[in-house]
């Protein structure tokens, strides 16, 4: 987005170190900003992008700092040799804590981070190996080819080179296959799961990545300060990192830099200015600090970065070029020819919630190249049936099989792997991702690139194929002109079409649409009906829930009617139209 000018700005900042006459005090502040920005960057990914709030990041900084302190002073390792070990130890601890933490629902997660954040802080101060509350001194400085980098100016260059690398790598990560999965986590991520994203694993990946960035910051800190003690790794500092992320704009990586810069400078300013105003012994800067955070939350909840971007761009979104690729994504292997059995087979499916039988003994099937519509009055169990088929809910009894595979209970990922793609009755898009990126999430399972390849930008060929495919699906639903807009800015009807495009990006065999025509205008419905007919002609099967009878009757090959969770009729549109049970369900009985 606004990446090139920012990279240039960072390069200029780097060059400042060699300009004579820069006050050493500025360099110290800049070093602190850089160290904080690394931790905050991880936190932005974790909190703002991934939706997991951590108050405990300072503990990871501590693990990084103490690991290198022990390795270099007790075991005599060189600082550079300790770096991989620092990352290994931090990553290991992060994985361990992450396994316990990332599964926590809602507000339990931040509380969990407070618990281990405090415990680790007390641990730093209690262990003899770590020098108890006195800490460890005499840590050697970094050196390159015998040249010591002990001076703050030299460390400034090292720190900011690492900051630059971390921001570029994180930017790469976010605009990749893994990045889209991470960004889809916020708001629950159940849609992402339906497109084959392993939610728990993605959360753990982000958690470890944030831990590693904090560990790196700790390593740099230890060799900058040359001594460590528990104070900078306590919960209070962990809270400060979170403030930086929130103030900068927790959803944006460059917000980490803005937030870290703003808070380090603000604290410094307050420490120098407030004593002059209210007396040195009062320490009122923390009060002002707290007040600023509260006022920020009350007036600008999204943070500073979005405001800066709006100033710079005037609030306009840049139009992306329609992505192209030299080769397409590999298509799904065709169903074996001569397959006579139904593609989807639902046999005596039942679901009860406590005492409520939402779906009772429902059986039907969908063949290849067929449009089947599920209708019924409100509360008939249509959406529950959908959720049973797509593995969002587990069956109470009965069986669902797809393409010869029996579906395991409650596994949306298996459904996605077999080639079922769905849309949601309540649209589940990531509102601040572009339409293109939202649709590209649908192709998640058709590509392989993992975290490491994304960080190093080795995924570009595959990424181009994904985006080109996503663009093709967007063209199919007729939204090409909205490709680069945030999905949340579209009208509801258009968002439904984006969901259909996302489903198509999975390259499905069966597409399940939950009320796709709701909120569409007349001509949009006609276009949708045309699209679905075209998909059917291409051999795709469609199962939809719909209320609009005009839309349904002209399109469906077969109709399945549910009422009070039971199947009351199935047949062609003509048969359903005159079916007495259906007429009674919709119009009421004639007593």
């Amino acid at each position, binding site marked *: 987005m606004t990446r090139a000018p920012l990279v240039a700005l960072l390069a200029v900042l780097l060059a400042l170190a060699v300009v004579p006459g820069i006050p050493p005090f500025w360099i110290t502040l800049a070093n602190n900003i850089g160290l904080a920005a690394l931790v905050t960057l991880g936190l932005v990914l974790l909190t703002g992008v991934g939706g997991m709030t951590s108050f405990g990041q300072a503990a990871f900084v501590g693990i990084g700092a103490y690991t290198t302190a022990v390795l270099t002073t007790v075991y005599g390792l060189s600082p550079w040799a300790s770096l991989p070990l620092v990352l290994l130890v931090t990553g290991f601890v992060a994985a361990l804590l992450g396994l316990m933490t990332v599964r*926590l629902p809602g507000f339990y997660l*931040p509380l969990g981070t407070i618990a281990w954040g405090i415990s680790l802080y007390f641990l730093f101060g209690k262990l003899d190996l770590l020098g108890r509350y006195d800490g460890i001194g005499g840590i050697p400085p970094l050196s390159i080819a015998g040249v010591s980098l002990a001076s703050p100016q030299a460390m400034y260059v090292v720190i900011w080179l690492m900051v630059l690398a971390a921001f570029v790598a994180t930017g790469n990560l976010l605009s990749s296959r893994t990045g889209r999965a991470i960004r889809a986590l916020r708001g629950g991520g159940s849609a992402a799961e339906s497109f084959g994203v392993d939610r728990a694993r993605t959360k753990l990946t982000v958690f470890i990545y944030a831990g590693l960035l904090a560990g790196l910051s700790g390593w740099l800190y230890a060799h900058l300060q040359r001594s460590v003690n528990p104070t900078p790794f306590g919960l209070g500092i962990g809270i400060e990192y979170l403030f930086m992320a929130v103030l900068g704009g927790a959803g944006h990586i460059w917000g980490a830099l803005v937030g870290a810069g703003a808070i380090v400078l603000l604290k410094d300013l307050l420490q120098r200015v407030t004593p002059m105003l209210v007396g040195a012994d009062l320490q009122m800067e923390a009060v002002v600090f707290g007040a600023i955070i509260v006022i920020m939350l009350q007036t600008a909840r999204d943070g500073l970065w979005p405001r800066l971007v709006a100033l710079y761009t005037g609030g306009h979104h840049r139009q992306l070029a329609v992505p192209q690729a030299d080769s397409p994504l590999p298509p799904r292997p065709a169903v074996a020819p001569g397959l006579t059995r139904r593609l989807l087979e639902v046999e005596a499916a039942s679901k009860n919630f406590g005492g409520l039988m939402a779906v009772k003994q429902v059986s039907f099937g969908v063949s290849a190249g067929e449009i089947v519509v599920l209708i019924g009055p409100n509360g008939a169990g249509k959406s529950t049936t959908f959720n049973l088929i797509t593995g969002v809910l587990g069956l109470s009894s009965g069986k669902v099989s797809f393409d010869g595979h029996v579906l395991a209970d409650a596994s949306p990922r298996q459904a996605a792997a077999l080639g079922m793609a769905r849309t949601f009755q309540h649209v589940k898009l990531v509102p601040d991702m572009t339409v293109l990126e939202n649709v590209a999430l649908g192709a998640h399972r058709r590509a392989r690139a993992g975290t490491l390849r994304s960080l190093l930008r080795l995924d570009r060929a595959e990424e181009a194929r994904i985006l080109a495919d996503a663009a093709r699906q967007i063209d199919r639903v007729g939204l090409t002109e909205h490709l680069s807009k945030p999905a949340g800015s579209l009208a509801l009807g258009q968002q439904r079409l984006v969901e259909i495009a996302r489903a198509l990006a999975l390259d499905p065999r069966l597409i399940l649409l939950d009320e796709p025509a709701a909120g569409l205008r007349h001509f949009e419905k006609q276009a949708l009906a045309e699209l679905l007919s075209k998909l059917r002609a291409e051999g795709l099967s469609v199962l939809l829930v719909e209320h609009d009878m005009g839309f349904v009757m002209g399109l469906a090959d077969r109709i399945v009617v549910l009422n009070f969770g039971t199947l009351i009729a199935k047949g062609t549109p003509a048969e359903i139209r005159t079916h007495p049970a259906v007429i009674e369900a919709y119009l009421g009985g004639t007593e």
Partner: protein
Amino acid sequence: MDATILLFLVQDGLTNGAIYALLGFALVLLFTVTRTIFIPQGDFVAYGALTYALLRAGHLPGTVKLLAVFGATALAVELWSRRRDLTPGFIATQCATKLGVPLAIWAVVAVLGAAPRPVLLDLALTIAIVGPMGPYLYRIVFQPLGGATVLTLFIAAVAVHIALIALGLAFFGPEGQRAPALIATSLKLGPVVVSGQSLAVYATTILLTAALSAFFALTLRGKALHASAVNALGARLVGIDTHVSAKIAFALAATIGAVSGVLIVPMTTIYYDSGFVIGLKGFVAAIFGGLGSFIITGIAAFSVGIVEALASFFASSFKEIIVFSLIIPVLLVRSARSHHGDDEDH
């Protein structure tokens, strides 16, 4: 370890546990009514403890002035938010509740001066000074954040905590305070000697718990508060002012904090920043109860107290680590239970 030491440790644990239970109740109450995970609860404990200790010693506690500052700020926020339709009557009421109350309390404390007073009077004064801080803070910080996510409220609560610690240092100074025991005598029950202080703690906990239960079960205000906790939207639709409910919850929480401070300050020296760790132990208990159940919170609080007492005997330097690590298995059980839960409403 013999039976005497064990009995002593258990008694110590039960006494601390009773205080954690009170704090846990306050946290559950605030969370259910306002969705706020109220990190500064412990700061009310420190404020209450220091205020009481200074009153006992015949000094004018700094919190008297601080209350006036909070009141004035809340008044300013209130008048600013209603700047378009200010009426003289409204201004008068607001001035009375937000400026008159703190100034009246200040006057009373100043007039009473250094003369020795009964314990209960100092307790009442402490509640009068610290209690109103709750609703004032709500008006200043949390009411304008209405409708924010749990996370935003949480971060705001942390910011308030940071500010309260700094204000504590500014108004109390870095010295710690300790007060004489509430009840000087002790009770001998067979082999067990129960100190008067412990008895005071148990009695207060039981009284406060009973009073809170009666408030929720018997009074209309209490029922309204309960309704706001169960379903805020529904409560609004039947005409309950959820801001009033929230203010009552904050007043109760600050009062509980102040009382807990009074109970704890004869047992240990309290500094301006001691409250946080005490409050966190109430949190451990509240989390056991899922921030929703008063009963589980109470039981858990006593367990936390006993674990802490035993830990301080067997592994004193790891006491805090052991207590806070208790949360982790609880969280794991909670997360296992809500395995398929989406957290989309947060």
